[in-house]
C-alpha cells in the first residue's frame, strides 16, 4: 500500500508527452471529421433548422437556437476548434472554441443527447485543460522550449475518464434483459441478417447471447487488461475488434472511432516514438533526464479528486431512485447506459379546455418531427416538457387555463406496450416532489430471442 507521498511522487513523475499529443491529434481529427459529416449529410438543417420546438436541459433553458446562418457558423467554429486542437495551434483557444461550440450545439435540444457526445465534451474539456500541445504541435513550433514531458497524473486522469465509460457501461449491462434474454441485441441482430458472410447466422439466438455476455465481460474487464502490461497489446486488438463490430452493427456514429483513437493512452507514454524515427533518441534522452514536476496546487488536486468521485458515482444514481431505469429513465443520461434498450412509445395528449365537454386529443406530430417524436415518446421528462408547451400553445390560442394529460404507451425491448404515465395526472401541475405519475414497468420478460434460427436458404 503506497502512502500519499508515494502517490504524489509517482503522480508528478515526468512522462513523455507523445501519447497525449497523439490522443490530441486523433481526437481533433475525428471530431473535425464528425462535424464535416454533420455538414455534408444535411443534419444541421434536419436537426436544428426544421424543428419548431426544442427540448431543453434543466438549467439550460436559456440556450438559444440561432438561425441557419448562426447554426452553420457555430458548426464552423467548432470545426475550426477541433482542427486547431489537432494541429495544436492556439491550443487552449481552439479547445475552448470546440468544447464551447459543441456544447452549445448539444444543449439546444435534449433529444440530441448521446452518451458519446457527452464523452466528447468532457474528454475534450479535460484534454483542453492539459498541455497536450507540448509536443508535435504548431504551438510547440511557434514557442519551442516547453519541454517534452507532462506529469504522469495527467495521463492517469484521461485513462480514468476512459475507464469510467467502459466500467459503467459494463455494470449497466448486468441486468436481466441483457444477460438472461439477450435483449435488445436479439432484436437488433435480426435486422442485420443481410450482412455479408456472417449475416445469416446473426438471427440465431446463441449469437445474441454470446454477444451480450461477451460485450458485458469486455466492458467490465477491458480496462484491467489495458492496464496490465503483458495483456495490453491483445487488449487493444480486442478494442479494435469490439469497436469494429459495434460500428458495423449499430448506428453509433463516432463512438467506436473515438474510443479506438483515445484508448492508446493506456500504452506507455512514449509509445508513439517507436513509430517516429526522427529525433527519437534525443527525445527519449530528454524525457529520461527531465526533472520531476512540482506537485500541483491543492485546488487542482481537490478539483481532480472531486471530478473523479463525481464521474465514479454519478452514473450510479439510478440505483438510489429504484425501479427500472430503462423504463422510468431517471438517471439514464450521463451514466453510460449504452445500447441497453429498444424503446418505442406512442403519446397522445388529452387537453381539457374549460367549457368543452370532450378533451381535445393532440398528437405530438403537431410540434415535433419524426426523430424528436421518437425520442420524446419514451422519456417521461420530455413528455412533461412538451405538455407545458401544449398548454402554452392552447393558452396563446385563447383557450385559457387548460389541463394536459398524456396517454403514453411504451414497448421496452419488445414487451407488449404498457402505460408509462398515469393518464389522470395533469402534467402541467406536477409538483417537484410528486411521485407515482410514472407507472411501474410491467412485469414479464422482454421479447424472447427469436425462435427462427437460420433459414436453410439463407446459407446457400
Amino acid at each position, binding site marked *: 500500500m503506497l502512502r500519499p507521498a508515494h502517490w504524489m511522487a509517482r503522480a508528478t513523475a515526468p512522462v513523455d508527452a507523445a501519447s497525449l499529443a497523439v490522443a490530441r491529434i486523433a481526437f481533433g481529427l475525428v471530431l473535425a471529421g464528425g462535424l464535416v459529416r454533420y455538414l455534408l449529410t444535411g443534419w444541421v438543417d434536419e436537426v436544428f433548422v426544421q424543428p419548431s420546438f426544442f427540448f431543453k436541459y434543466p438549467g439550460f433553458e436559456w440556450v438559444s437556437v440561432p438561425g441557419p446562418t448562426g447554426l452553420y457558423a457555430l458548426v464552423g467554429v467548432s470545426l475550426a476548434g477541433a482542427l486547431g486542437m489537432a494541429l495544436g495551434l492556439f491550443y487552449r483557444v481552439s479547445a475552448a472554441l470546440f468544447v464551447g461550440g459543441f456544447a452549445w450545439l448539444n444543449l439546444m435540444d435534449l433529444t440530441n443527447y448521446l452518451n458519446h457526445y457527452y464523452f466528447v465534451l468532457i474528454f475534450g474539456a479535460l484534454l483542453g485543460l492539459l498541455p497536450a500541445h507540448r509536443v508535435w504541435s504548431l504551438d510547440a513550433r511557434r514557442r519551442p522550449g516547453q519541454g517534452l514531458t507532462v506529469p504522469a497524473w495527467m495521463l492517469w486522469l484521461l485513462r480514468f475518464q476512459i475507464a469510467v465509460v467502459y466500467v459503467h457501461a459494463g455494470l449497466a449491462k448486468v441486468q436481466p434483459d441483457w444477460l438472461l434474454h439477450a435483449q435488445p441485441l436479439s432484436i437488433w441482430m435480426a435486422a442485420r441478417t443481410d450482412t455479408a458472410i456472417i449475416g445469416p447466422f446473426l438471427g440465431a439466438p446463441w449469437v445474441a447471447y454470446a454477444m451480450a455476455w461477451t460485450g458485458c465481460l469486455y466492458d467490465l474487464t477491458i480496462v484491467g487488461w489495458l492496464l496490465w502490461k503483458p495483456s495490453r497489446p491483445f487488449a487493444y486488438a480486442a478494442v479494435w475488434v469490439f469497436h469494429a463490430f459495434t460500428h458495423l452493427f449499430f448506428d453509433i456514429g463516432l463512438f467506436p472511432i473515438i474510443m479506438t483513437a483515445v484508448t492508446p493512452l493506456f500504452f506507455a507514454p512514449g509509445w508513439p516514438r517507436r513509430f517516429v524515427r526522427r529525433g527519437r533518441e534525443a527525445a527519449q534522452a530528454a524525457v529520461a533526464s527531465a526533472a520531476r514536476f512540482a506537485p500541483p496546487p491543492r485546488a487542482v488536486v481537490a478539483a481532480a479528486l472531486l471530478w473523479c468521485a463525481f464521474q465514479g458515482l454519478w452514473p450510479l444514481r439510478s440505483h438510489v431512485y429504484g425501479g427500472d431505469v430503462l423504463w422510468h429513465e431517471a438517471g439514464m443520461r450521463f451514466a453510460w447506459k449504452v445500447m441497453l434498450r429498444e424503446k*418505442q*412509445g406512442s403519446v397522445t395528449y388529452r387537453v381539457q379546455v374549460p367549457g368543452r365537454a370532450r378533451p381535445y386529443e393532440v398528437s405530438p406530430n403537431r410540434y415535433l418531427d419524426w426523430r424528436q417524436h421518437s425520442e420524446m415518446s419514451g422519456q417521461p421528462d420530455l413528455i412533461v416538457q412538451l405538455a407545458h408547451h401544449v398548454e402554452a400553445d392552447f393558452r396563446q390560442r385563447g383557450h385559457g387555463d387548460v389541463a394536459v394529460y398524456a396517454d403514453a404507451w411504451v414497448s421496452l425491448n419488445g414487451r407488449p406496450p404498457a402505460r408509462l404515465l398515469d393518464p389522470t395526472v395533469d402534467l402541467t401541475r406536477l409538483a417537484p416532489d410528486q411521485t407515482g405519475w410514472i407507472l411501474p414497468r410491467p412485469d414479464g420478460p422482454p421479447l424472447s430471442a427469436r425462435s427462427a434460427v437460420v433459414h436453410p436458404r439463407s446459407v446457400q
Partner: protein
Amino acid sequence: MVSAQPRGQGLGRWLVAALAGAVALTVACDDAASPVDLGRRQAFLRSVGPNVFVPTYAAFAREAAALRSALQGWDGQADSADAPRAAFTAAMTAWQQAEVLQAGPAGSSLLYVGGADLRDALYSWPTTNPCRVDQALVDQSYAADDYLRTALVNGYGLDALAHLVFGAADRNACPAQAAINADGTWAALDAATLAGRRAAFAQRLAAHVDETAQALVSAWSPTGGDFAGQLGEAQGFDGVQAGLDQVAWGLFYLDRQLKDVKIAFPAGIDPSCPTDQCPEAVEFPDAPGLSLAALRANLVGFRALFEGHLPGAPEQLGLDDLLADEGATDLVVELRAAMDAADGALAALQGSLAEAVVAQPEAVQALHAATKTLSTLLKTRVVTVLNLTLPQEGAADND
C-alpha cells in the same frame, strides 16, 4: 534496453494485425450487395412488390384510364356529371388503397430510395387548393403547354379533379378578397363558358393522371423501371433492413393522415377543429360517401401491406410473418384484432362521414379509438420488434 526494440516491433506487429483484421472484417461485412438470398426480410421485399404494390397500382391505372374516358365526353355541366363522378369515385377508391404504398417511385424524392414524387403528382392531399383551381379556370392557365410543369402539386392531380367534378358549378372556393372575386372576373363568366372550361381542365388533368398512373406501373414493372426487382435485391438501399424500413413507413399513413386528419379533425377530436364538430373538414366535402369509401380503402391497403397480399389473393409472406419470426405471434393476433375492430367501427357509420360526424359522434369517436389502438401497436411494438428506423431517425447516431 536490449529487448526494447524487439518488444516494440512485436507490439507494432500486433497492432497492425489487429487493425488489418478489423478493417478486413468491417469491409467484408459492410458489403450488403451480395446476390445471395439473405433471409425472410429480403424474401418479403421480393414478394411485396409483385403481390401488393404492382397489382394495386395496376388496378388504379385501369380506373384512371376509365376516368379519362368518362371525362372525354363531359360537357362540364353538373347534371351530366354522373358518369364522370362514378368514374372518379372508382379511381379515387382504387388510389386510396395505394396511399399506404409510399415506398419507391410514388414516394418523396427527398425521403425514399427511387422516390419520384408520383404520389403527390397523382393526389397531393392534404395539400390541396381548390381556390387555385378556380383561378386557373378564370385565367385559363390550365390550357398553357407548361401548366403541368409550372403549377404546384395542388393545381393538378386527383385533388384538383375532385373539385372540378364534384364542386359547385356556380360558386368558387376563393375568399371574397381573392382577385377573381374582387375584380369580378369570376362573376363575368357565364355558366356555359365556365362549364366548357371546367370540362377542358378536367380532361387535361384526367389525361395527366392516366399518364402518371401508367408511369407508376411502368416504374415498378420488370419491363420498365423494375423497381420491384430493385426493392427485392435492396439495390440502392443501405441493406435489406433499410428497404423494409421504407416499405413499412407507409403504414404510418394510418396514424398521421387517417387517424389525425381524416377522422380526428372533422370529429372535433383534433384542436384544428375549433368547434365541437367540423364536418366540412372531411376529405371530400363535395362528394358524399367518398370520404368513408376512402377510409375503407385505406384500411384495405394497410391490411394488404401487413399481410403481403391483396384481399382474396393467395397468401404471401407479409409483415405478420416477419413479426412471427421474431416470436411476436401475440402481437400479430392483436394487430389483426385491431384491424378488425377498425373495420367494424367503420362499418357502423351510416351515410357519409360528414353526416356521421354530426349524427353519430360516438360512433366516429369509436372509429378514432380503434385506429388509435392500431396506431399504438404500430408505433410501439411493431417498430421495436422489427427494429424499424423511422424517417429522420437517420439524422443522428444512437447512444
